[in-house]
């Protein structure tokens, strides 16, 4: 008797592990995605630990050493106040990554709830949600964000809200179609016919089927969000000018393009690489998770 129970336990335990192992094996084959993942983890590490290992204070100005090019003392040179560009970019990682992350999380949660409910229940609710999404889709992302910030006023919190808002419709739509697909699966119908509550059906049977597209889009969206919040800061809508935000730094550096190009190249390169990394990681995840691609 006891042996049987044990076996059953093993089966339950080993099933997810096996899926993960399988996934990991497949993922490791996508070199670009692996490199991207390492880079992203490194950036997250920097975001968390930057203030500990950095040599300079983020706001420490050195008026005897302004707009200096890269040197051994200042890896990536100094800005117009003689502040260390490397230090500011590393500390800025926290601001840029976390504001992007928070806004995408907010946008995703709202988008997923709306999308899954719309897909599952259909009818008038579905129509309302989807038409609202269509309206939001009609505006280019960044324009929509600028409009929102223009209404709410500049500031990092408002940028997060703006980016979250334009993240919602794409998630709602993707989740809706994934839900529509999952809804028709025989096992969902079985669950329904044996009398599972709609909550249980949604949460236990439909939602897990949509997680793959969720993860992929979530990753890709972070890249977009970094780009959007940097753009907003560049335009002066985002972080306060004194903050070490990547977009704001790029905007300041623009004034010294011909005398101190490192002030533009360094933040520009960092934004580029980070966004690229998130996009490549998303690509890799999609390839790995999609059962149609072997």
């Amino acid at each position, binding site marked *: 008797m006891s042996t049987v129970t044990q076996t059953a336990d093993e089966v339950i335990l080993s099933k997810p592990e096996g899926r993960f192992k399988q996934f990991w094996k497949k993922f490791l084959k996508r070199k670009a995605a692996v490199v991207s993942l390492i880079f992203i983890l490194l950036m997250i590490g920097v975001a968390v630990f930057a203030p500990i290992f950095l040599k300079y204070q983020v706001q420490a100005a050195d008026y005897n050493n302004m707009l*200096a090019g890269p040197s051994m003392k200042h890896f990536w040179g100094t800005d117009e106040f003689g502040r260390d560009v490397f230090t500011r970019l590393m500390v800025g990682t926290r601001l840029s990554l976390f504001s992007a992350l928070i806004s995408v999380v907010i946008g995703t949660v709202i988008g997923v709830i709306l999308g899954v409910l719309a897909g599952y229940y259909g009818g008038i609710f579905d129509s309302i949600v989807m038409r609202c999404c269509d309206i939001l889709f009609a505006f280019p992302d960044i324009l929509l964000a600028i409009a929102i910030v223009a209404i709410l006023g500049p500031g990092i919190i408002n940028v997060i809200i703006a980016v979250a808002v334009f993240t919602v419709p794409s998630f709602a739509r993707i989740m809706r179609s994934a839900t529509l697909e999952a809804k028709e699966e025989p096992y969902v119908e079985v669950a329904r016919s044996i009398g599972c509550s709609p909550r249980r059906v949604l949460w236990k049977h439909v939602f897990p089927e949509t997680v793959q597209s969720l993860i992929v889009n979530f990753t890709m969206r972070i890249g977009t969000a970094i780009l959007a919040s940097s753009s907003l800061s560049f335009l002066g809508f985002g972080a306060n000018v004194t903050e070490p935000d990547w977009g704001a730094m790029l905007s300041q550096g623009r004034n010294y393009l011909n005398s101190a190009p490192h002030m533009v190249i360094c933040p520009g390169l960092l934004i580029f690489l980070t966004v690229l990394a998130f996009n490549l990681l998303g690509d890799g995840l999609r390839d790995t998770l999609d059962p149609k691609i072997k």
Partner: protein
Amino acid sequence: MKRKLVASLLAAAMTVGMLSGSTMLTFADEAATEGDVQTVSADGAVVTATEQTKATDNDLVIALEGSVSGLDPQNISDTNAISACMGMYETLLGWDDDGNMVGVLAESWDVSDDNLTYTFHLRQGVKFHDGTDFNADAVIANIDRVSDPDNKLNRRRLFIITDENGNETKRITNIEAKDDYTLVITLNQPYNVFLNKLTQFMIISPTALKEYGNDIMNHPCGTGPFIFKEFEEGDHTTMVRNDDYWGEKPSVDSVTIQEVPEAGSRTAMLQTGEADFVYPFTSDQINAISGSTDINVTASPSNIMRYVTLNMNLKELSDKRVRQAMNYAIDKDAYIKLMYNGMGLPATSCVPSIISYYEEQTPYTYDLDKAKELMEEAGYGDGFDLTIWGDNTTQEIKGMTFVAQQLSQIGINVEVVPMEPATVSDSIYVDEADAKINMWYVNWSASDRSFDSSVRALLTSDMVPPTSANTAYYRNSDFDKTLNDALASNDEETLKADYAKCQEMAWEDCPWLFLGNDEVIYASKSYLSNCKVNPDGSLNFEHAVIAQ
């Protein structure tokens, strides 16, 4: 295969990116300034052209940062509009290169001993662009126009006296043309800056005034060396040579004042020859022209005062010790170096040294210990929070950030709030009860170079917003009284003593953070000569010569 390539490229880029980037970016070393200070020779030359070129045309194109707001000389207040108007219009009095007052449309003038009656002997044989003769009646027509409240002209302030209740009386009691070329003006009380004020009062053709009324801004007609050709708001103003000019005729065929807000674009226009003269030429652009051999960059002293007003209505800032501590906490030399590449001087009084009756004060030498001590004494050892307002241009944001950095050293946490210029004035010129201002990063220059004009609107009690720009809400009855007393006197010794006392009071009370007086920096093609910028930032292109 393709995927592999992407991966390795990416890996390489990221490694370089994360590790140092120094190998990749070494070229930046050559261009970097290392924050060095520019040296300026005695004649103000910052960069001297090594090549003398010739122009292909005789049309002067000037690229300016700001916009020309309008061309009605009696309804403008910004420097660029004054520059444009001064090409087409003339005043009774003006300044020579050494800062002495000289006659322009008035050949000479006398002032009565009681300082009330001014007699002007006008220049004869001068004609307006429309052929009208210039005479005493023309001046009277202009004064009548500007004094009429219905015309709502901002130069009207010159001709009225406002008491503390807002009641207005006319400053001029009598104006009379003794003959065609002798004008006698009588004031109701002594006003020793009257002549200074007249250096900014441009005379419009009375015929044109009659014809166009307040639409004169679209049909400028003066006696100046240039005749109006075209004005496109926000873009350019063009004028052509007046061949019938009474004085030395201009050498250039036409002058175009072009508005170019981006510093980099102005530099590019100068390099390509699209513009012949550029102002302001920001000091960080000097490196950008290192490859050009035909550009001169010149710096000259200005009467531009850079300061930060401290709202003395705030509890923390009402304490003099705090305001003094803040002044001690600012490294003025670093400010000049940072903002103007060293081309400027730390402020040594509430007015720049070029202003008449300037007296040097004991500087608030950068001294953090003393500043902290004063803060401690005032009970703010732990500091407090403030905001600083200012325009959202590159330079202003830089200046505000600098002030924030400096004040953080004594525990004052400053939030930098750049705003659109229009938003700044909307926020500042409000009723006192609604005023949210803490600090304002701003500058001021008095075109008439008088001490009174340099401080009256900024530091006297009845000039608090929304009336005028006393945004420090500085109320010192002694200061007001001394300044008013001086206005009624024409005794040099009394004036000197009164104005010295005013400066001492303002300096001691610290209604401002006294920052500096920058130099005006402009750049021109080497074929252009005799074109320069006046100390107040207005242009002087009348005698410009383009080598052909």
